[in-house]
């Protein structure tokens, strides 16, 4: 099998996936309490349509998407709305959330409005797209970009290629790996829905070559799909190298095309969807179930019994960690997502949100904080940058308040993958400076507009 890869840059971090790769997805018990932030996606927050003391059923719409660039929120348990209030958000700060409490332990009554659409093949594209939007589906790979937006190419922009992203290049995470092994059929059902909406002529499923079992499973499922008349996707192996699963790198690896600076995959005729998102699309369209649960890898060398769990959205992280046997000793750091791009949270009371692919509690030795030292100009940051920028130099520009220069050197093309900071021998926090610089540039721009 040919192994594809992006051309330049990237790093080989210790995969650390063996902790959970062989563990089947476990169904987590129903949480007693869920916290559902109104902003679990990129775009405008959803607007609540319930009030405190309202009774809600599982899958019921509780906050709707008023803007086009938004996503609705559904109740993930059966119970009572106890509060509409600000709650600590996994991505930082306190943001409005709907808090639900369940009536009883096993009480899980589904919203009667949920019904399957076995006739989905006869439905027009725009209806399917609307169903995906109404189900609150966002990219489950981590970015939480509303899926219906990606499925709505602007007038005149044709989409030829659909890439289903099963790369999972972040160390430690195995949620997508398990999903491919255990729910390949559902993923392919989702793929056929996406194919129909986009009208693509070619579909790929990309998987890192460190997951040969997932590749085999998806090839098999793809053959089965072909037998029943579906346009079968081509399953391709991509080299195990971080950040192979990044949209722009994956497009380059498979199609040899580069997304222009400031552009979207649509500009080169490509749409990328994560395998988890494809499964969620099938769930929403065929069974009518909105996005109220997802697979989360709970892992790390400071977790007693790491595992992959199917959990309701809004479940507090502390509940999940308890389910995974708790901590070995005390936790030094809790990371939502993987070690390369995940967000460290300061409390385990934050909820699992739609984009939470993993909860990582690493061993102290892995995360020792080092003091930054002077840059020795070794050039490693440039060597590993998959966007071929000069990452280390951004620090000089931002520190020296040369924001225009940082922009000229395409700071906004940096996706903050962290490869540069991972290798920097001087331990310079390059990603931190880049984030700070981008925020400063944005603020300056809004100030200029206000004037």
């Amino acid at each position, binding site marked *: 099998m040919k192994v594809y890869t992006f051309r330049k840059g990237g790093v080989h971090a210790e995969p650390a996936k063996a902790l959970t790769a062989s563990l089947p997805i476990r169904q987590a018990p129903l949480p007693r309490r869920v916290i559902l932030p109104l902003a679990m996606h990129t775009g405008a927050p959803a607007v609540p349509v319930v009030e405190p003391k309202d009774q809600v059923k599982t899958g019921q719409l509780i906050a709707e998407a008023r803007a086009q660039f938004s996503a609705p929120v559904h109740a993930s348990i059966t119970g009572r709305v106890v509060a509409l209030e600000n709650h600590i958000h996994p991505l930082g700060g306190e943001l409005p959330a709907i808090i639900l409490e369940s009536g009883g332990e096993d009480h899980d009554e589904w919203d009667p409005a949920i019904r399957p659409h076995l006739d989905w093949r006869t439905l027009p594209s725009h209806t399917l797209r609307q169903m995906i939007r109404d189900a609150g589906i966002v990219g489950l790979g981590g970015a939480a970009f509303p899926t219906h937006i990606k499925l709505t190419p602007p007038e005149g922009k044709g989409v030829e290629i659909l890439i289903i992203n099963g790369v999972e290049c972040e160390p430690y995470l195995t949620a997508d790996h398990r999903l491919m092994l255990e729910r390949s059929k559902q993923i392919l059902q989702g793929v056929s829905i996406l194919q129909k909406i986009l009208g693509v002529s070619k579909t790929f499923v990309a998987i890192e070559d460190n997951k040969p079992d997932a590749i085999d499973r998806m090839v098999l499922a793809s053959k089965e799909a072909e037998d029943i008349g579906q346009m079968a996707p081509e399953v391709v192996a991509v080299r195990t190298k971080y950040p192979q699963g990044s949209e722009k790198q994956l497009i380059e690896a498979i199609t040899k095309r580069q997304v222009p600076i400031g552009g979207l995959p649509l500009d080169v005729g490509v749409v990328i969807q994560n395998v988890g998102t494809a499964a969620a699309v099938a769930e929403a369209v065929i069974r009518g179930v909105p996005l109220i649960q997802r697979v989360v890898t709970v892992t790390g060398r400071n977790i007693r019994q790491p595992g992959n769990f199917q959990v309701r959205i809004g479940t507090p992280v502390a509940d999940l960690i308890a389910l995974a046997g708790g901590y070995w000793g005390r936790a030094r750091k809790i990371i939502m997502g993987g070690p390369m791009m995940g967000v460290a949270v300061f409390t385990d009371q934050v909820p699992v949100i739609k984009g939470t692919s993993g909860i990582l509690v690493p061993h102290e030795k892995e995360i020792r904080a080092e003091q930054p030292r002077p840059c020795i100009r070794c050039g490693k940051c440039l060597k590993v940058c998959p966007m071929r920028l000069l990452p280390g130099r951004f620090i000089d520009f931002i520190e020296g308040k040369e924001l225009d220069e940082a922009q000229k050197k395409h700071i906004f*093309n940096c996706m903050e993958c962290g490869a540069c900071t991972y290798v920097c021998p001087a331990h310079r926090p390059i990603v931190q400076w880049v984030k700070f610089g981008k925020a400063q540039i944005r603020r300056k721009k809004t100030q200029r507009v206000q004037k």
Partner: protein
Amino acid sequence: MAKDEENILEVSISPHIHAGVDTGTIMRDVLLALAVPGCASIYFFGLSAFWLILVSSLTALVTEWVFQKLTRRKIRIQDLSCLVTGVLLAFCVPPGLPLWTMAVGSMFSILVGKELFGGIGYNVFNPALVGRAILLASWPVGMTSWRQPLRMITGPVDAISSATPLSNAKLSGIFTPFKDLLLGQVSGSLGETSALSLLIGAVYLFYRRVIDWRIPVSYLAAVSALAWLLRQDPVFHLLSGGLFLGAFFMATDYTTSPITPRGKLIFGAGCGLITVLIRLYGGFPEGVCYAILFMNSLTPLIEQFTEPRPYGKV
């Protein structure tokens, strides 16, 4: 929620893990690589080589510490970079150099070549070569008084003159056999004699991915090409003098060479061309030191014109 001090979680911006290679480990690797030619120089030149290396490194260490202490800067001697400078400078001097001269040179290397520019990462010129240039200008006799090796692996000692192979070639038209150049049974500076030992150290640096191939390869290619064009023996020019030391250990210095891939190729080629021009038409028999110093000064300019094309730029 954090209930007490004990349970406070750390937060920081991603990434949360690190490759584990830092400035100190890189410098340690360079020192290990330099240990091979270091041992070779002690074998051929005896204890005087050992004392020179020791005095040079210790002076470098003390100078850096004192400077940082006096200027109330952060003490950074733990990164071992000053030892690399010290050892490299000792490799650039003849085995008979008085120890006090060695110490003065090493002090200049660290003070003028490195700390006055702002310390590690900020210097424009390779500090060891700055030291060598100052020594050569100030004590030219000591710096050009060569000694024969004490020991030989093959052949009798008296077969070799005490002049360096390059000055023999330049002034008397005598060419030293390749075998002697390779092993290091020739007179010269501590670290420029045994090409083989330098090569072993360089292989280690490649293996540890401390240095990139571009500068040494373009440097050596340019030397061979120009030597061949000027009807010289390219192999003789490759193996003699400080070329291997310069190409693998000095031109590859991170701080003073371009970080861009194309920039590295241009830098190396420039070093090669100037080295041969000085060897053949300059006042000195050897040109490595000034060639690298000259190219150091062009590093910012080269970098500016060789920035990589970013992903997605049309």
